């Protein structure tokens, strides 16, 4: 069975979307219900800054990969001919 490698990338993006939703909820909670003080804003800033850093590092490594490449798994398992 052969399929393009970018299928994995699409699955990754779906999870990334979920991660974005979680991040939005977290930041919203902090800003909506946190005390109006330095700690609240500082922790939100640190969260967003490190998130951007992680996304940038991920992008750096992911952009170097050829996602058009085909992946073959199970070889010719589905085209095997059996003789009895």
């Amino acid at each position, binding site marked *: 069975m052969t399929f393009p490698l970018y299928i994995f990338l699409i699955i990754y993006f779906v999870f990334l979307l979920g991660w974005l939703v979680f991040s939005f909820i977290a930041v919203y909670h902090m800003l909506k219900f946190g005390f109006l003080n330095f700690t609240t804003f500082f922790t939100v800033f640190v969260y967003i800054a490190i998130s951007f850093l992680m996304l940038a590092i991920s992008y750096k*490594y992911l952009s170097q990969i050829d996602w058009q490449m085909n992946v073959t798994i199970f070889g010719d398992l589905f085209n095997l001919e059996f003789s009895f």
Partner: protein
Amino acid sequence: MLLLYRLSGKLPDEKIIKVLRRDAFILIKKILFFILLLVLPLVLFYIVVTSIYPGILYGQISYPIFVLIVSFYYLFLWVFFFFSFIDYYLDVWIITNERIINIEQKGFFARIVSEQRLSRIQDVTSEVEGFFPTIFKYGNVYVQTAGAKERFFFHEISNPDQVRNIIIKLVEKSKAAHHT
């Protein structure tokens, strides 16, 4: 956002006596667990690369999948650690000279805010139980109010005995003020 100097339903002449969160040791435990989850995959990765599958970083398929999994793992670890911090940070107990307020974050979408007037408080109990609570001086404070079955519960706060004494003194003052 919550403004300490503008509490909801603030009473005339009400002053904030103490703002409490769970003990710092609880936060340190969360951070240590986060560090463990941060480091553990690196150790596993080292074992895999050195002895089980040295070609993982050079394979045309294994390398992209490896990068995706690492990115996915650390992004979600980071957001769940942040949620864990929020759970700690947004659970607050406020003691004023008129009432006690309990603000509790439960999961992602549940938030409980309850309050009790000091004049209705009948009994205050502090509890320090276990090895770490005894060493680091944190524990629970239960506040029993008149008529209510449910007790106010200050969870894993620092110096629970001191907090109990503060509440008892404030209750006595409040009851004396209401009788005069």
